[in-house]
């Protein structure tokens, strides 16, 4: 499935008709450096487009993760509790939350557009 990107460097991808997964971009993990802690949402939390649902922490900095979708959290990636460094190693394969919700392409960028923008960073 195709990934869509938010300006704040999160990606969202549909896994079925009503479910999406959310992660952070390669640019984001690279800018953060070594990720050592993830403060994640909980199952049942409501997430709103553009609003913070968690924090990702590197050795030196804390960065908010904003939701690229509206919906309800149905699952969180438990692996990230002990191995948040997966977000550095495989940012595009590592989802953070699974959300009952639908992608709104009008508010997001396609991968092609995002990567073109990324080159400008």
């Amino acid at each position, binding site marked *: 499935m195709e990934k869509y990107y938010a300006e704040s460097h999160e990606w969202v991808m549909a896994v079925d008709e009503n479910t999406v997964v959310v992660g952070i971009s390669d640019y984001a993990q690279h800018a953060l450096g*070594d990720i050592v*802690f993830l403060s994640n949402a909980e199952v049942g939390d409501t997430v709103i487009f553009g609003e913070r649902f968690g924090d990702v*922490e590197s050795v030196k900095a*804390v960065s908010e993760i904003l939701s690229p979708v509206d919906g309800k959290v149905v699952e969180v990636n438990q692996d990230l*509790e002990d191995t948040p460094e997966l977000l550095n190693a495989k940012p595009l394969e590592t989802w953070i939350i699974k959300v009952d919700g639908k992608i709104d392409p009008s508010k997001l960028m396609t991968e092609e557009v995002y990567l073109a923008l990324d080159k400008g960073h």
Partner: protein
Amino acid sequence: MEKITPLFNWHKNNNGNIVEFGGYLMPLHYSSGILHEHHVVRTKVGLFDVSHMGEFHFSGKDALTNLQYLISNDFSDLEIDKTRYGILVRKDGTAVDDLLVYRMAEEEYLVVVNAANIDKDEAYIKEHLFGDVKFQNISEDCGQIAIQGPLSQELLKRLTPINDMPYYTFKGNVTIAGKNVLVSRTGYTGEDGYEIYTAAADTEFLWNLFLETGKDLGVEPCGLGCRDTLRLEAAMPLYGHELNDETTPLEAGLSMFVKLNKEKFIAQEALSEKPLKRRIGLQLIDRGIAREHCDVYFNGEKVGIVSSGTKSPTLNQSIAMAFVPAELFKETQFEIDVRGKLLKAEKVKLPFYKR
């Protein structure tokens, strides 16, 4: 305008992630990242550019009396070729800076200070100098490279005989590949190591020589990012965090470097009093990372503040140094406000890590 060290171009050309620190443009880390560099220093050997540090030269009949007057430690029995740590203090006991004093000769001392404080220290010292003493700020002429880690001795002895150097001693006028250096067995990582002082012009040559010589030992350049996590694990104070213009060495837990039995000492009276706050070490029990400026709570009441905190790469634990009222020094259970959440923290002995 930020200053640069003699190694600035090297850092830039070798993927150094450049940030401003203490008025200097310095590498935070290189391409392998802070965690990797941290482990390199704990397990092998890392090189740090610390040329941003300031160097002052004191000489004359009254050089010692001046140091005794302004710096918290007692240097009267400091032998030639030995080094001692101290805190430059004001009359009210607050810290202007923390520093190392090297006794170079009978009436000659080298004093090494923090980059961010060079101008402040110089002004403060000049304001208070008395008697027969000559003071010179030689910071711009000096380069400095720290070689830190368990294999640092192995690296350095390939270049110069240094087998008989105990911790906190140094040798001046050592020749490495034709360059004149001062080799000091000191460091800021809690690991074995050396600090090499040299002429600014020779710094890049020596840096490359150390990298080449230690290649098979796994030597790597390391940035300020891991210098901070390393010194935090070793609970070494960083000026601007555990020490500042409002904090005394007693509050910072540095009483072993405060000697009041001196003839003339500017803060004798102020530092005779018991401190009102104390530095403690905390380890988080709840999940999260406490960082500088986080509030510390005791029994639901805000009582203090975190001065430095991180997730320790060596211990894989969230650790923090914090200041609390002296009467709570013996308590063991605290809480830390991490972005609105109160996380449980337990007092632990400092340092967090000991080699």
